[in-house]
């Protein structure tokens, strides 16, 4: 197993290099050093001389990929691409346009993201599974039909509407919770209540349907028929057998999500002013702070690959028949 994990990590390296190359190309086309200089220097009394000076002092005057003037390994390493992108592998993200260490910012902003994402995931999971079980229990009745219809309807509503109406009704009209903001510690609860609720409701539609299909597949299997033949009640079958057996796909489905939880939710965080990585990313895109965007792209890719790896491992853990090769 360790050999497998190590091999997978080795596989990830060329992928990450590819990601880096791609983002480097993408962002340097959009954001030339000249642009960066102007962003830093402001618009009012900037001179071309000041721009050139900025480019030199910040090391953007190097060649892009290959430095013919340098010696030995420096031919590759003393270049913009190497300096800007390869250091990401050591999680050295450099500084943003505002002069702050990105690594430090990320480590700080990760926590609010998790504080929102984990409760949303757990509550959503619990609620979805529960509702799906209920619908399966009532399969073939009007309740099931209506349930599915409501799910599809919920799926058809843009997440933006949930956020906008949630804020308007619960926070503005009813004054139950602060409309936005964040605080660390226990008082975070009152700020997180609404975004968590919104994200749970927005996720109900697809979640319940997904689990419902899962359970329905399970309930048609032979062992369920046997159990029913033994005279077990429907509820007992559902909770004892179906849920237990469906747990494997449920859990592995969740495992793949875990690393990406760190990245936070773009929309919720920026609407509710939660200082997590999601709003960090959106702000960076809007302010065209490409150092941050590049770092987030890299981080996102790492976490994605990690998620895939974790899923594979968790498969073997829950089901010994699956062998990694």
């Amino acid at each position, binding site marked *: 197993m360790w050999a497998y994990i190590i091999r997978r990590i080795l596989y990830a390296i060329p992928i990450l290099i590819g990601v880096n190359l791609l983002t480097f190309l993408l962002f340097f086309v*959009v*954001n030339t050093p000249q*642009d960066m200089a*102007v*962003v830093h*220097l*402001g618009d*009012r*009394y*900037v*001179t*071309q*001389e*000041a721009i050139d*000076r*900025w480019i*030199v*002092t910040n090391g953007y005057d190097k060649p892009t990929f290959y430095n013919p003037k340098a010696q030995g390994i420096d031919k590759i390493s003393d270049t913009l691409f190497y300096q800007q992108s390869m250091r990401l592998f050591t999680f050295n993200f450099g500084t943003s*346009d*505002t*002069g*702050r*260490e990105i690594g*430090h*910012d990320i480590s*700080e*902003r990760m926590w609010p993201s998790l504080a929102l994402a984990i409760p949303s995931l757990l509550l959503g999971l619990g609620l979805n599974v529960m509702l799906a079980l*209920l619908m399966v*229990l*009532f399969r073939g*009745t*009007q*309740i099931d039909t209506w349930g599915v219809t409501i799910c599809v309807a919920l799926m058809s509503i843009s997440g933006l509407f949930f956020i906008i109406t949630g*804020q*308007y009704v619960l*926070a*503005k*009209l*009813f*004054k*139950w*919770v*602060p*409309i*936005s*903001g*964040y*605080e660390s510690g226990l008082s975070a609860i*009152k*700020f997180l209540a609404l975004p968590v609720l919104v994200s749970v409701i927005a996720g109900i539609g697809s979640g319940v349907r997904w689990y419902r299909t899962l359970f329905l597949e399970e309930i048609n299997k032979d062992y369920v028929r046997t159990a029913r033949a033994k005279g077990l009640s*429907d509820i007992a079958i559902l909770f004892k057998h179906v849920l237990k057996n469906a747990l494997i796909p449920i859990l592995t489905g969740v495992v793949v999500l875990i690393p990406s939880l760190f990245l936070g939710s773009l929309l919720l965080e*920026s*609407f*509710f*002013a939660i*200082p997590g990585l999601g709003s*960090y990313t959106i*702000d960076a895109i*809007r302010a*065209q702070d490409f150092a941050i965007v590049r770092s987030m792209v890299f981080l996102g890719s790492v976490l994605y690959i990690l998620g895939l790896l974790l899923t594979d491992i968790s498969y073997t853990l829950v089901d010994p028949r699956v062998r990694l090769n």
Partner: protein
Amino acid sequence: MILYSISTAYNRGILSLFLGLSLCCAGCDEIWNDPNPANQTNEVIMYTDFSERPKFLDPAKSYAAAESRFIGQIYEPPLQYHYLLRPYQLEPLLATQMPSMSYYDAHNVLLAENAEPTQIAYTVYEITIKPGVLYQNHPAFSKNAQGEFLYHQLSQQQLHHVQEINDFPIQQTREVTADDFAYQIKRLAQPALNSPILGLMSKHIVGLDEFSQILFADFNHLPEKMREMGYMDLRPYTFPGVEVVDKYTYRIKVIGKYPQFPYWLAMNFFAPMPWEAEQFYAQEGLIKKNIILDWYPVGTGPYVLAVNNPNRQMVLARNPNFRAEYYPTEGMPEDVDVGLLAPAGKRLPFLDKIVFNLEKESIPRWTKFLQGYYDLSSVGSDNFQQAMVINNNSASLAPELKNKGIKVYSTISESIFYWGFNMLDPVVGGYEDKNRALRQALAIAMDTEEFIAIFLNEQGIAAQGPIPPGIEGYQSGKEGVNPYVYTWKDNQPLRLPLEHARELLAQAGYPDGRDAQTGEQLVLHYDVITTGDPVEKARFAWMQKQLNKLNIDLNIRATDTNRFREKMSTGYAQIFSWGWSADYPDPENFLFLLYGPNSRVGTEGVNSANYQNPVYDKLYEQLQNLDAGPQKDQIITQMLAIIRADSPWVWGFYPQAYSLAQVWNGALKPNEVASNTYKYYTIDAQTRATLRKQWNRPILWPLLLAVLGMLLLCLPMAVVYWRKNKQVHHLRVKEE
């Protein structure tokens, strides 16, 4: 009808039932939606918001209004603007009096005070600062008994415990000396700092340009590590532009006569900077933790930055070392009535803390303000449209706000928003009569008054030229009207009729919006920045509608900021929108926006229209050397006449800056040029607490309704389940 009354009675019954229930439940007196943490101490705290993350808090770099809101309270330059007096006036802040001026000729011979401007080669400003001014407590100053700095060479172990600046146990202070002011001026030339005003100041301060070249050369010889940190010890350097006379006196030598220079001395660029701070922050371990001068200022002002979390919150707290400074005793006559002079002579500042919360979305910001969680709302007019209703000829507060006692403070800001024509463009540019006619026609078609009504809720004044009211050279009334766009009727300017614009258009060679030669429709291009702001779409459509009035098509080329800048610099743009807010209240700071040598293309200057008119340029050069007076006014009138005829801009409007304050705020006066006004503000925390409670009782009946609804939903489920079970049972019985 009967049915109706029954149902309302029924509704009322349910309502009162729920209300009763909700009143019974515990904690109804509690507020649930307070976004601020409970205030345990008895400090007087003001809550307000910021929408834009400050980028730089270093006084050598910071230039944006979003930043000066913070550092204006922390750093103090030698001069400041008087809080109450209008027109805006400079007064000493860290200086003991206004700087003294002496003129020299090219051979450094002292000239008389009334010397001819052409004779004057240099002006020397001598500034004497107040003795005994202390910096805020800061680890950079901390020394041990031997007089060695405690934290200038931090060990790994020391660093381990440090997460922010307040984690250093020993924090000391030092007296401000003239050296610190000189040090800061030298920092303007420091290559790694890239001060935004270096380019401009190099033209004015003697030797600054050469000095920056020297520093740049030396910087490139620094070891890689130092270069990365961007640190240079500037103490050994001197340059002719700045001279320290004694501990409390220094001189700045300016090229020629530059009467506007004292205004710069009221900006944070000229605040004192202790060299210890720079040396302290130049440590790799601190930089890794984002502890840098840009984020943890070292100032002398009434406040220090207690919490710096630009992602969420910035907190200014009272500086214990702040010297005795007092509320002004002098004001305008109307200030007395509104209570602005009530605190006269009292010691500043009044507030213990100012909490700024980051609010990027306007709905939460607005809602929190209405709920009483912000004392001041300070964002631009765009987000305040909801606040105003138009009643009987004037915009006033919406009744909902009036009932809450909210006050509105508005003032014309020293800024202008305009639509410019790129004068290099073959279609809209040019200086021939027909080119002029086209631009004038467009200026008439662009109904600025409608723009102000729709997008600013009447919070602005249509501009007649580049100079806004309150600044020398602005003329109100008939004389001040731009005759190419307006006539004077019924004691107010009246936009010329569209027919006139159509005539002009025909003169320009485009009768009815069609090219007279080819018959093709005239298509113009509007280059504009798009930021994803929701209002943009409406603005673009409005622009198109204006030109459609003349049967001209408008192609909107919206791009991001970088691309827009590129277009402007290469002279590719055609019609564009631009804004300028004054650095200082002087007409020169507006008229130079059209000065030829400042042209955008080629020199990256502020003349974004690339307007070139030799007569205007000559007049501007004369104006530069003039002190306020009738001669200056006369030249301004001439200049205005020239640019109105050429109309390189559609003059646009002077926006009104306005802020809303809750009833518990003491009287305040908006000041558009001073950024350090928080020290004058007061708050009645008692009233605030009561009103907040009153305004924020949670409405609970929907909660109960929701619970009830859920229970009701369970009912059919139970029924179905029961039926199903019975069916199964039935089947089983049958089988048996």
